[in-house]
């Protein structure tokens, strides 16, 4: 997984911490709950910075190294913050053979960031994903919950302009 150590300062709020503690309390004695706790923690913070991983490790009494191991293993988890608008380019096979690779390259150029990165203003983040299952609309990108299909590089400016 292409996770890099995040560099932006962590801006967690006390309310978020409270929510996290409640989750940890709920799952503390459930065996094998680490993945589920991390999922909920990511829902709270939007990503899993080291600070949150330490809280989870201490709360569940699991070595931090094991938490970090799980976080970096699964592509759902991110240790980098995401933008307000998360752009995912589907690089599944059906989309790839219909030119999704060009869409991905073009978006990196247009946004000036590489895959996995986030624009400095925090507006857009870009990532590749493997198949959203909308192969009938290939090539597909998603921006948060919106799905855009049957795209060519020419369509991208209009789509980005909506946000």
């Amino acid at each position, binding site marked *: 997984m292409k996770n890099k150590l995040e560099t932006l300062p962590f801006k967690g709020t006390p309310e978020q911490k409270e929510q996290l503690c409640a989750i940890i309390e709920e799952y503390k004695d459930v065996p094998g709950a680490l993945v*589920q706790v991390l999922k909920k923690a990511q829902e709270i913070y939007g990503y899993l910075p080291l600070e949150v991983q330490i809280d989870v490790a201490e709360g569940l009494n699991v070595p931090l190294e094991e938490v970090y191991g799980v976080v970096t293993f699964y592509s759902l988890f991110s240790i980098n913050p995401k933008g307000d608008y998360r752009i995912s380019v589907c690089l599944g096979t059906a989309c790839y053979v219909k030119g999704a690779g060009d869409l991905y390259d073009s978006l990196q150029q247009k946004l000036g960031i590489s895959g996995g990165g986030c624009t400095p203003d925090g507006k857009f983040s870009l990532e590749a994903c493997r*198949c959203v299952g909308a*192969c009938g*609309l290939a090539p597909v990108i998603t921006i948060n919950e919106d799905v855009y299909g049957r795209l060519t590089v020419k369509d991208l400016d209009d789509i980005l302009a909506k946000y």
Partner: protein
Amino acid sequence: MYRSHILICGGTGCTSSGSGAVIEALEAELKKNALEEEIKIIKTGCFGLCAIGPIMIVYPEGCFYSEVKPEDMEEIVNEHLIKGRPVKRLLYKETVEGDSIKSLNHTDFYRKQMRVALRNCGVINPESIDEYIAYDGYAALAKCLDEYTPQQVIDIVLDSGLRGRGGAGFPTGLKWKFAAANQADQKYVCCNADEGDPGAFMDRSILEGDPHAVLEAMAIAGYAIGANQGYIYIRAEYPIAVERLEIAIKQAREYGLLGKNIFGKGFDFDIGIRLGAGAFVCGEETALMTSIEGKRGEPRPRPPFPALKGLFQKPTILNNVETYANIAQIINNGAEWFKSIGNEGSHGTKVFALGGKINNTVLVEVPIGTPLRTVIEEIGGGIPNGKKFKAAQIGGPSGGCIPSEHLDVAIDYNTLIELGAMMGSGGLIVMDEDNCMVDIAKFFLEFTVDESCGKCTPCRIGTKRLYEMLEKITSGNGTLEDLDEMEKLCYYIKNNSLCGLGQTAPNPVLSTLRHFRDEYVAHVVDKKCPSGVCKDLLSYVIIADKCKGCTACARKCPVGAISGAVKQVHSIDTAKCIKCGACIETCKFGAIVKM
């Protein structure tokens, strides 16, 4: 009683094309005309024709509308539902013949299909257990508990010859037999819904369209092997499927079809959902179980096999969604019925997700042994834009390519292995002359490098080295010796990796080397990419005859590589050109080409 039923697809494909808004608009129109009591809207699962969604069928006529929009609803309600005149311009064009409208079942798309696993998809409301029961739902479970011993259930499944639909094609009944033979205080039944093969979406469609079929089959499996707990491991990327499963489990519990003392026969069985967190390797059985246990989803060495020590070290069976979708019908119709479908050694049907360079991007289910040509040309409608078929990639990152000379081969488990491909999950991606096979091999290797869990060295380092060799070739630095080295490395990785991911990862390379060696040779000897895909082997050239000197390309070029005066022929400085393709898009005269 309703005088008309309207089925609208609520699967992921159609939802992405906006079927939610269509349903809302239709509801509003029906309300406006006070028709809510007469006409019922049913949100179904996937029909399979995702490319022309959103899809809507009006019964009793069976009129099949495609690509409908919210603003079309007023016309459909006024014309069709009130005046009884179908709106021809919105009907799926294959169903319109002159003045008459033919049933969807008589179109090329459906005629060659046989729907077993997808039987209820697009037919029933997946959020209603009553509709499932009306279509013989849970009859098979009742029959098993009522008439058969667990051993008899296993014998029927064994006898049917059903093989796993998720990849390797292991006989399902055999798996059950092994797990049943092992004694333990607790056993588990797992369902693999971690459909990781990019480009395959049949499991998702089944879960979205007919979730109870999977629950019923898992309960039958539980009865057969003596387990009372099941887990469905499903990708978090499939929110609609997860939601429908949750609803289905809740309904089944309310009806006493899951939980304690099912059908009053003293059999307990319940099912929990576990969400995957995005790791392809978790489709491998031991990795999936490790992941359910909350750890890094790394595979474990076998033996011990899961039938002896699986989830939480207890005997476990794991089957794929599509495999389960066949079980109830085998019980209801008998092993002989199932054996009568398909080929010797490969019985039943298989669902394929047909995608890529094909006119109908669809989900199809055909008897195993149907020739590839039938699937691609008759059901898939052939290749768009008059391009030539080059290959079909089957089985995803673990599979291989089938070139045009083998199009008439009957697709079954054994013939595919002989051709260097595999059934896999059934992703079937069609490629035309514009796709470079070396680039496709590189694409799959990039995927496996990314998804290799890193536990064993042959896979972790081997796939990386293999990827680097492909990169060397596509950048024009490869030699003929590299091809031989690559082949050697492929077999090394295959023979020495711990799990199925590594053992099959070199398949895309081996099969393209076997069927498209000439393309590799063109890359390493002529330093050319015949399909014009590999950027390092291309140069952008302006055709003097077509260039009008409009300067549009020069203005667009991000690196200032294009020069030329107004109304004069322009030229591209290949040393500066970064091959971004912006000039080709900009040129209105088609004067710039990749060579």
